[in-house]
């Protein structure tokens, strides 16, 4: 925008500047919180579940129906309302500001960043300073960070992150009798905190699930798959190709618990026992639930690895030549409704398949040349700034895709179905219910040159993921391919060059012989 500065307010993660923990899905560093748009007074639609805390003393009846947000009603976990409501209430004071004193000129994000440097005792003490401080210091993400940093994965989720932390760190303090009941504040207006609550409690709207335009195929041959989908790099949903999996028959929560309840799996930045994870996922109600996403599940529990096999379409997997030195390539994915991954492109320029064993997932895919609305990759592709949560993306950006010419590919993938995600495609996934899935990334001959190019980039060491030896991966891989498939790369390169020449020829003739256009078409 000429003449004025666009204010980019990249919200750094609310945590102490600590080690960058690496997970296979953690491709996002900076996140942007989009302010509430076009929303003044909020009346919550009927499908919104009522707040989960117990009713307050006044006995407000908010039960099953959904409710309208009155300006004086202390409704939310702490009674936070959006700023729009303040403006409708002339003469009203914002207890947020009075309670912060001269800190009130700082934005919510800044206040939370400051609080993010404090430890639990400080937060506990500060909550008694004023009602405003109460709301801020009880912001769950702060406590989530404390739990994840200090307790690693060894925690028993206890209703809320704060409660979990206090119960674990101050065992002599009787949590239950002094149940940290939520305390309602009045006249507290804040878009950021309201949005945070909203995103944590909103369910997927039916209209977000309506569009299902992916191509579905059942029982096609590998040749047809390669010709129609892999080669042209198009997504497809394959039905019936994992019917023979033992996993499909056996895997449910009880089975997995019996098999591996005490095994630690990778969950976000930590490792957790499966049993502890389920305890968390049953209770949690937050914007970005922790997601179990483990690249070593077959090594940890060989039986799991033995109960599935790679569908026939994806068996050519050239990273296999690297043996144990190959980057992470297969994950078990378990998560509650609302968990998932916001927009990203898979690493190393690989393609992927994702098979749902239990539950269901909503997918949204954009082709490589179309950046999804609300997503801002950095020029070198190393960082992706995207809305904080999947729900927030749906609330703020999904609607705009309806009018786009380049509509995204969408579908709901159910148990027994497999989706093929071509390399370079942007995708977003959200679990609509508790789900168990397996996903793998792979490289076939159709994709080999792309991957080599990617690994050979000058900034490969930051971009390449899933392996410890990033810088040498290019050399290793190239040599290994040459050893196992001598001459293959040259052959592929030759074919590729030939194809390009063909395409140039075509477009030339196109322009010369095009009588429909009437005017001479320039093709540069």
């Amino acid at each position, binding site marked *: 925008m000429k003449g004025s*500065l666009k204010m980019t307010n990249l919200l*750094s993660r609310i945590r102490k500047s600590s080690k960058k923990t690496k997970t296979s899905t953690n491709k996002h560093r900076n996140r942007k919180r989009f302010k509430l748009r076009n929303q003044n007074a909020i009346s919550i639609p009927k499908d919104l579940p009522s707040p989960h805390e117990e009713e307050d003393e006044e006995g407000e009846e908010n039960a099953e129906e959904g409710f309208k947000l009155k300006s004086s009603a202390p409704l939310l976990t702490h009674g936070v309302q959006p700023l729009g409501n303040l403006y409708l209430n002339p003469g009203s004071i914002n207890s947020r500001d009075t309670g912060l004193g001269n800190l009130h000129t700082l934005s919510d994000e800044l206040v939370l960043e400051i609080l993010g440097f404090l430890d639990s005792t*400080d937060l506990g003490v500060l909550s008694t300073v004023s009602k405003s401080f109460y709301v801020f210091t009880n912001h769950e993400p702060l406590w989530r960070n404390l739990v994840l940093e200090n307790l690693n994965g060894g925690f028993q989720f206890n209703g809320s992150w704060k409660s979990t932390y206090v119960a674990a760190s101050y065992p002599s303090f009787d949590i239950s009798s002094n149940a940290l009941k939520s305390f309602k504040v009045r006249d507290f207006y804040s878009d950021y905190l309201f949005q945070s609550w909203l995103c944590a409690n909103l369910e997927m709207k039916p209209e977000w699930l309506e569009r299902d335009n992916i191509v579905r195929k059942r029982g096609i041959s590998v040749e047809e798959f390669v010709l129609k989908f892999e080669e042209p790099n198009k997504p497809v949903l394959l039905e019936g190709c994992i019917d023979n999996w033992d996993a499909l028959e056996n895997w449910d929560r009880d089975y997995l618990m019996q098999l591996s309840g005490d095994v630690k799996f990778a969950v976000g930045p930590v490792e957790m026992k499966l049993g502890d994870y389920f305890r968390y996922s049953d209770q949690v109600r937050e914007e970005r639930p922790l997601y179990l996403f483990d690249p070593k599940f077959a090594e940890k529990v060989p039986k799991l690895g033995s109960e599935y096999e790679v569908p026939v379409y994806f068996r050519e997997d050239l990273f296999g030549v690297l043996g144990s030195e190959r980057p992470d390539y297969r994950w078990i994915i378990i998560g509650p409704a609302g968990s998932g991954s916001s927009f990203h492109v898979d690493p190393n320029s690989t393609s992927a398949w994702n098979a749902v064993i239990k539950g269901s997932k909503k997918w949204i895919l954009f082709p490589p040349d179309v950046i999804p609305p609300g997503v801002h990759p950095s020029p070198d592709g190393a960082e992706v700034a995207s809305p904080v949560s999947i729900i927030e993306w749906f609330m703020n950006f999904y609607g705009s895709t309806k009018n786009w010419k380049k509509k995204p590919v969408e579908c709901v993938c159910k148990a027994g179905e497999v989706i093929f995600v071509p390399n370079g495609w942007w995708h977003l996934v959200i679990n609509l219910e508790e789900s168990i899935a397996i996903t793998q990334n792979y490289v076939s001959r159709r994709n080999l040159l792309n991957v080599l190019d990617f690994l050979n980039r000058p900034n490969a060491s930051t971009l390449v993921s899933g392996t410890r030896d990033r810088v040498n991966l290019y050399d290793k891989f190239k040599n290994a391919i040459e050893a196992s498939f001598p001459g293959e790369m040259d052959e592929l390169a030759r074919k590729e060059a030939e194809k390009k020449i063909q395409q140039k020829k075509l477009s030339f003739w196109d322009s010369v012989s095009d009588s429909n256009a009437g005017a001479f078409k320039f093709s540069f």
Partner: protein
Amino acid sequence: MSGISDTERMITLKTVEGTLFDVKSSIAKDLKTVQAFIDDSDDDVTSPIPLPNVFTRELSRILDYLNNHHRFRSGIEKADEEMARYDAEFAKSMSHEELKALILAANYLNVKDLLEFLNQTVADVIQNKSVEFVRNFFGIENDYTPEEEEKLRNENEWAFNGVEQD
């Protein structure tokens, strides 16, 4: 390793009061908001970039910080100690009001490292202090009733052991 300035271009920034600052492009990179503006511009930016939210005092401090940090980073070994000393002095040299104003400016200009440092500085002030201290320091009115406050204290009793008494 960041490249040595191929062309150390100068960018001119203009504060609210109209003061002009010439800034090396390598420094301007740390002002991410400014950098985004430059990146988004089709042509080379020749005229001064106006910063409608930033005052001279703040910009001057920010540039001072960045210039020094760049110097420390590109210099010799003992830089860490020197840098820590500089940072401590830098934080101490400001009143609370000035610190807050600087946070807002650093936030607007998106100077990540400085912002983190400033936020940490404020956090350091609050750390381990009593409720009364915090209220006085920030000029906060206690809006709890005595009953509410007591109830809340009980609920957070685990936090109060070991903190300096009011």
